[in-house]
């Protein structure tokens, strides 16, 4: 493929061909994970296991607290608890879905083949994002259905705005995962544990179950630097006052853009470093 002269626009047909080629390669990566899950029901079960378990624990806790408060249904506090739990699962499953899908290539000692194929690193990232989105849906949808069936809590009563909450939490999951994958490229399998644990470290600062104002003053700037804290402030505003806090959503999107850019730069740098150090073939060790 020859490069276009500097400043010259690429003709429409080559651009379309390039995009079609990229889409085919991305589909190849998605198909690889689809084929894996199609023939491994324990993997599918694992996707939904923790969200369902969490929903059961938090749901019964919320019901107990509501009963103590003398309410027949869920109190506002209980709804905040369940809403927080379900939305946070979106971020958790998005992050784990992305990073664990990368790990699948490492565990199967397949990275060498992937990296010598024409699949660009940027296309790999897009493919992992799509796989992570599908994994998140399979993982979180049963928990949402359970919340509705068992506790009469429907997260969609938040309104169409929930799509924007979901989007922000998914994007956050992806840039955190890019950071984790970058660490794996740098440190190999030694960084593997972070795939499962890293986002739990963000939970106290994300103000999932309480407002940012509850945090000590020194911790608040950290919380406000995270898109998740703005999403959960927004969620509480909808549930408490029925108000959509567009300012919080704007902060969440802005911060996500910033952190996603940082994640992409870190990944690109660590990928290049891995090529310099010869780590791509020995990355599973």
């Amino acid at each position, binding site marked *: 493929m020859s490069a276009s002269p500097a400043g010259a626009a690429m003709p429409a047909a080559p651009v379309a061909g390039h995009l079609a080629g990229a889409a085919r390669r991305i589909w190849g990566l998605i198909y*690889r994970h689809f084929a894996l899950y199609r*023939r491994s029901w324990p993997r599918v079960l694992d996707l939904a296991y923790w969200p369902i378990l969490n929903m059961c624990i938090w749901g019964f806790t919320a019901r107990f607290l509501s009963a103590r408060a003398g309410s027949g249904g869920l109190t506002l506090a209980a709804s905040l608890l369940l809403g927080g739990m379900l939305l946070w699962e979106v971020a958790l499953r998005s992050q784990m879905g992305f990073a664990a899908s990368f790990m699948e290539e490492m565990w199967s000692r397949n990275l060498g083949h992937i990296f*010598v194929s024409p699949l660009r690193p940027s296309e790999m990232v897009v493919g992992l994002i799509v796989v992570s989105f599908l994994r998140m849906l399979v993982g979180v949808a049963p928990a949402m259905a359970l919340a509705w069936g068992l506790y009469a809590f429907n997260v969609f009563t938040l309104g169409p705005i929930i799509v924007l909450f979901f989007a922000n939490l998914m994007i956050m999951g992806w840039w955190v995962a890019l950071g984790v994958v970058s660490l794996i490229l740098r440190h190999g399998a030694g960084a593997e544990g972070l795939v499962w644990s890293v986002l739990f470290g963000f939970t106290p600062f994300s103000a999932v179950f309480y407002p940012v104002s509850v945090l000590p003053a020194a911790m608040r700037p950290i919380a406000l630097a995270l898109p998740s804290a703005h999403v959960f402030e927004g969620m509480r505003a909808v549930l408490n006052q029925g108000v959509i806090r567009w300012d919080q959503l704007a902060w969440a999107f802005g911060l996500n853009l910033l952190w996603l850019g940082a994640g992409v730069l870190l990944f690109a740098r660590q990928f290049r470093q891995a090529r310099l150090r010869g780590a791509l*073939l020995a990355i599973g060790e």
Partner: protein
Amino acid sequence: MDAIRVQGLTKRYGETLAVDAVDFAVAPGITTGLLGGNGAGKTTTIAMLLGLLLPTAGRIEILGHDMARDRFAALARMNFSSPYVALPQRLSVAENLRVYGHLYGVPCLEARIAELAAELDLTDLLRRPAGALSAGQKTRVALAKALINRPEVLLLDEPTASLDPDTGDWVRAWLERYRAASGCTILLASHNMAEVERLCGQVLMLKRGRIVDRGSPAQLLARYGREDLEQVFLDIARNRRAAAAA
């Protein structure tokens, strides 16, 4: 135009010089053997040719594409097989080939898979998980993956390692036929001297990151006054000088 052209290729890890200013060219349609002891720089050289490893210095051109600037255009026209890089074990043979067919943008993919399966005697294995195959069957599947995009340049790292003599011979015969029929350029790293003697038109002898000798198997045998490449290999490894130079 050479299929592969390497100039001043160098890879340094800190104080260690893994590949030291290597120059070579491979003409289209030729099978070239890369020989050398452990740590001679064969795998490092192949990893740089594949773009997995960035050289410290030097230039690699494959099929006219500069690997530093245009590696994806070259990668689409080449492929690679090594027993040390696996295919996903839980996917069936057909699924694995489908994944790589999409990654390489292979047209009429199902027909290509059927064609390769027939050629490599894989038709009965297409639905079996890759992890449930014997070593010989895995090697044939790895070859099918390496040929899925009809590569013009094929890099093979020890293609018959850990195979029994019968299967190893089958693979070598198949590679000979394939190269003759397709005109594919093959670069082969191997410790099996008989294999190199049989398959290669050109041999590059690597030692401590440098090419210390090169030529056709017949030329090397004559130069060292030996009857087989294994003896030539030992002469070089043990610093015994070529008969012609002595």
